[in-house]
């Protein structure tokens, strides 16, 4: 968990974390391939010998949000913009790692409170007003940093009370951890279907990789594994899940009703905790793209409850990850040709 969260992998530049994921997954699958855009497709074959095996696609995204250098200013200060959705107020005063020609240490500096006029103190910072300071002269900075270089908040995984941890990029390295856990569980279960576990790219900038990967795999069923909001002050109860009470199973237009029904049935059968999440439109996850690929794919979505999404202290309960992996594996074990046929609607 520590390794994949701390590894860098901003949207469009997922190569490094893709390597780590490949190393972790390959012992548990039969085949691996990577497409030109960087999606990594892991295939674990099913046992069904009669005719065409059902095909299940699982998707968790490799990419995380990050910062991109837009200009090197006088004095060696670096202006930047966000890759993916970032609240500028959560990056002020942070340490960063800047991936230039070398790895550089830097800070996102702020004016000290003594020098800030009172009325400014109550206003949130804007991205355009911030800068990264790598403590170099402009000349040195220009040698080591270029426009387009990426920076990430420096954050190690933090163990909090009990099984709670916080780290950057839990969105969606947690999803990848669930896929791994699922693949490990599947090694002791019989499953008829071929499982294509895909580590997708560029979800944070518009769910881009999943569309391409799904087009290539053409599955009978697609399940995305991502994170969802866990309760915290200021968020209405119905807008969030609880930590430690199992994954969220989504229902709504983005989800095939028979798939969510079946996942719920499996959870009840194996006494696995889960929470119901109703979402009234296309979700902000890979499921959104999977469902409308080619002639349409029956889609499901499993989500890990997580606090403080899109900050560097994304917080979750490790038990939720194991439970989700298990639930996913049991669901897959129950999918056969008959189930797939039953998905053609009413």
């Amino acid at each position, binding site marked *: 968990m520590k390794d994949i969260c701390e590894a860098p992998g901003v*949207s*469009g*530049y997922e*190569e490094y974390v893709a390597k780590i994921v*490949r190393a972790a997954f*390959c012992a548990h699958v039969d*085949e*691996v*391939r*990577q*497409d*030109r*855009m960087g*999606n990594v497709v892991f295939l674990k074959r099913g046992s069904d010998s009669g005719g065409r095996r059902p095909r299940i696609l699982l998707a968790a995204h490799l990419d995380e949000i990050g910062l*991109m*250098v*837009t*200009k*090197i200013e006088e004095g060696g200060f670096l*202006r930047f*913009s966000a*890759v993916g959705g970032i609240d500028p107020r959560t990056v002020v005063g942070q340490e960063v790692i800047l991936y230039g020609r070398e790895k550089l240490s830097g800070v996102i500096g702020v004016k000290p409170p003594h020098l800030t006029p009172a009325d400014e103190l109550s206003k949130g910072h804007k991205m*355009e007003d911030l800068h990264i300071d790598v403590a170099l002269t402009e000349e040195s900075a220009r040698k080591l940093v*270029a*426009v*387009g270089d990426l920076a990430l908040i420096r954050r190690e995984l933090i163990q909090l009370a009990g099984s709670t941890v916080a780290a950057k990029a839990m969105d969606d390295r947690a999803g990848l951890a669930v896929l791994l856990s699922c693949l490990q569980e599947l090694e002791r279960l019989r499953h008829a279907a071929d499982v294509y576990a895909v580590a997708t790219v*560029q979800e944070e*900038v518009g769910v*881009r*990789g999943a*569309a*391409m*990967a799904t*087009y*290539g795999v053409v599955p009978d069923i697609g399940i995305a594994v991502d994170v969802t909001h866990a309760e915290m002050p200021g968020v209405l109860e119905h807008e969030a899940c609880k930590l430690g009470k199992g994954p969220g199973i989504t229902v709504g237009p983005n989800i095939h009703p028979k798939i969510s029904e079946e996942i719920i049935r499996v959870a009840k059968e194996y006494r696995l905790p889960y929470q119901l999440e109703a979402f009234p439109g296309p979700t902000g996850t890979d499921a959104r793209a999977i469902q409308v690929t080619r002639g349409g794919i029956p889609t499901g979505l499993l989500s890990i409850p997580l606090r403080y999404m899109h900050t560097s202290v994304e917080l979750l309960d490790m038990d939720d990850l194991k439970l989700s992996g298990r639930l996913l594996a049991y669901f897959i074990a129950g999918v056969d040709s008959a189930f797939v046929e039953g998905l053609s609607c009413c």
Partner: protein
Amino acid sequence: MKELLKKLSETYGPSGREEQISRVIREEIKDYVDETYTDNMGNLYAVKKGSGAKIMVAAHMDEIGMIVTHIDDKGFLRFSNVGGLSPHVLLGQRVIFANGSQGTVGMEKLEEINKLKLEKLYIDIGATTKDDARKHIKVGDIATYHREATIVGNRVIGKAMDNRAGCAVLVKAIQELAQTENEVYAVFTSQEEVGLRGSRISTYRINPDLGLAVDITMVGDTPEAPTMDVSLGKGPTVKIKDASVICHPRLKEKLSEIAEKNEIPYQYEVLTAGGTDAGAIHLTKEGIPAGVISIPCRYVHTPGEMVDLDDLAHAVKLLKAFLSAPLEMREIFPCHLE
């Protein structure tokens, strides 16, 4: 290049009504390619056959415009925007329709100018009644800025440099392209300004190994400009990212490599808002590696867009060098198999 750019800039061709500009471009390139054809959305394709990698290069030929939605009793025309139009830039502008009818953009009385919206504007073509107006214009007709292109030193000012400058670069590159193994599809796309629409379907049709878009981009070198490290006259850009696409890192490397090898000045570009045809190209089917070569342009989406002729010349050089380089797809985009 000057004459070509002037001709393209002054030709009429808003999104959805690209016939005139399409004809002009076709005339320029038909003798340099093996085939030209169009599709039901008005995209213009020009193909140079080859046995190597299949490369698509897109330059959108549409410009922004004003679509007439209503003709009132006195013959004034109400309109809506085709692409990104700023109501403040439109005030008092001279506009022209496909059939040559011309007019001025007028404004209703307004207390606060910063509350100006398109609904408060109208086009006056000098008609006296509704019927008089209808002799020349019908609902659905689209007007564009009416402006001559002028050459000032090494720079050119005109309307629709976005993206006639890109079209000029692509035309010249095709005209001057030496023999190459690669199969090149030069596509002059339609309806980019309203949502990258022409490139989306043309990429699907061609299904290339990789795609490049040639478009304009904004600059940061004017007084109190928003932060952007691109300047006029410092060379074409190799785009890294905009809101529609994160250019494939391998393509970005390849373009930089080719630029350095051929001593072509270039800049890196990160555009925080806005998109190009590459946004639609890369999301086609199973994903197509895409990159962008941009021409720096000041005053984008105004009738006084300004580009630098050296930037255009260098862009042509870069594009030609890229298209003639032997592209071993497996070498550039290794697919790992374990």
